[in-house]
């Protein structure tokens, strides 16, 4: 039962919807160059993010991280693993 709940609370970037409040638990298989880029924008393990919106055509996703509005493409960040806060 507990295991099942854990599985449900784990999310991929592509699963995020508007209004979600999530925490990054793992970078998964994100490649090193992109991971560094994420780091320099303040995305590290344990960071909390709020999903602000998706762009009109559905693709870039706007996150509020440490008070900064960041946009990234869900498909490119698909390896990131999030959990609900």
């Amino acid at each position, binding site marked *: 039962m507990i295991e099942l709940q854990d599985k449900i609370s784990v999310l991929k970037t592509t699963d995020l919807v508007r209004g979600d409040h999530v925490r990054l638990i793992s970078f998964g298989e994100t490649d090193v160059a992109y991971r*560094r880029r994420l780091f320099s924008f303040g995305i590290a393990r344990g960071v909390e993010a709020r999903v602000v919106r998706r762009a009109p055509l559905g693709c870039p996703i706007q996150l509020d991280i440490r008070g900064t509005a960041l946009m990234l493409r869900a498909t490119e960040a698909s390896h990131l693993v999030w959990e609900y806060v």
Partner: protein
Amino acid sequence: MRCLLVGNPNAGKTTLFNALTGEYQRVGNWSGVTVAQKKANFSVKNTHIELIDLPGMYALDVSNTERRDEQLAAESIASNQADCLINIIDATQLERHLYLTSQLLELKRPMVIVLSMMDQAEKRGIHIDTNMLSRALGCPVVAESRDTQCDVLKHALQEALHVPKAFDLVCMDDELTMMDERYTAIHALVERVEHRVMEVREQFTAKLDRVLLHRFWAFPLFFAVMYALFFVVIVVGCFFQDQLTVLSDAVFVEGVAHLLRYLGCPAGLSAWVTNGLGRGISTTISFIPVMGLMFFLLACLEESGYMARVAFVMDRFMRFLGLPGKAFVPLIVGFGCNVPAVMAARTLDSERDRRLTILMSPFMSCSARLTIYTVFVAAFFPRGGQNVVFSLYLLGIIMAILTGLLLRRTAFPGKSSPLLLELPVYRWPVWRVLLRGTVRKLRMFLWRAGKVILPVCAVLGLLQSVPVGTNSSLLSVFGQWIQPVFAPMGIAPDNWPAVVGLITGMLAKEVMVGSLNSMYASMGSFTGLAQVFDGAVGAYAYLLFVLLYIPCASTVAVIRTEAGRSLMWFSVLWSSALAYGAAVLFYQLGTVSQHPEQTLLWVLSIILLLGLFVAYMRSANFSGGSRAATTS
């Protein structure tokens, strides 16, 4: 003493640079306004300080970023020629900006930290204990905001520069170089020095974004903003342009003519001076309202923070071209001038994105081309002129997109680099900065135009006054000699000045109206424009050619330094071919009822040539483009 300004993009480095040195470098509210380093000097109490403004950077380890501007900044820091680093931190983004700071501190170099946008931070309920931050980082911390007096800041900086430096940083163990750990240390530090009053009230930016980035309204609003821009520029700008033309003609053409007659000047020399030089100066001056408005409104968009939103809204669409949404920003900058647009491509993350954007940007109709449209619109499209101009701008964008698609399918296959972009907070533009910036750009425009326009008009005037046979001059013989090439796009043999105008336009578009003016003036009156072109169709075909062919010598030169010689030649040939093809196609289709067979022949041959070219592109290899030059 030499100081480097270092900091994250859009932290306010150039704003501080301008405040300290009294320079007016371009500032904006988006990441990557500064793409090359800028130097200026100032002195405080006999200490002479050379300040160097670097492009923004997120981290010191740029080994795996391909961004040219970040690499330049990292190289400057690594070269170790500065006596002191000045690290700018946006107070509203303390935690994130401290990441770069922590890396800079590891260099163990004298350093001062400037907290910028303190007023913004206060407004958002963020209080920062600068003393504690200073103690924790072991280097002086100066708070700065928009209202800070320059002198206070200078003195604070000067004193700070003399403080003995003690470097014992939060995380200095070798074990702790992991970036995760770095953030943990920073987070702990920020917990101590920063106090946030949680605000329930919604931020202005969030509210505005709800409308401007709305799922359905974002696109219509973007186009509305663009259309409003052109509407204001064309309708308001042209009104003032007409007034100014009358005034400057009175001074520089009639006035000079009177003066010369009074001085007893020979008629030939007098005609050369008034029709060549006088008219050239007068035309250039009459551009001031239109250009000024265009520069001002574009700067408003940049300063407010809307530009970065455009990248967000357009990303999905740009990916269709294999480019990131960010590439849209250089393209919009191109509406002002193509030269900074090509330069702005440096902010893109990969060589491929950069080259693609550089090759697309010359098609963005720059404000110098606008001067030509306004003259033709006044003569041929008295009503709905702004729609004609808007259609030209749109066509430019479409051609840029087609070029992008073609190159993506042929020379530059592959995906665009991953996208990560920061949306800045909306800010009211500082009117003083905007106005000064506009005046500076106008002055540069007038200088640049004047520098070319006077010699060109003088040479044209001279060539025109050299008689060949009866009733024709050297220039008209030359013009008529090339004219047949342009006959398919509707330029009649007696309209040779249009051809010569296109040649002078290759130097700079600012020159074109001036040279056309002086050439037509010697043929009769300039209001006779309507008679020499084949109606609205002929005029529009001519404008199409003006829109699409080589923007100007400066753009070609900057493409060469940024993308290499082979891409420069590609750009020159491709844009000229596209211009010719589009103009001929439009004219032939527009006059199809007069000669259906001829039109059919032209349409078929243009399609055939385009097909052959695409086939060639598919097999060509474009790896020859050299790396961008370090400075410009």
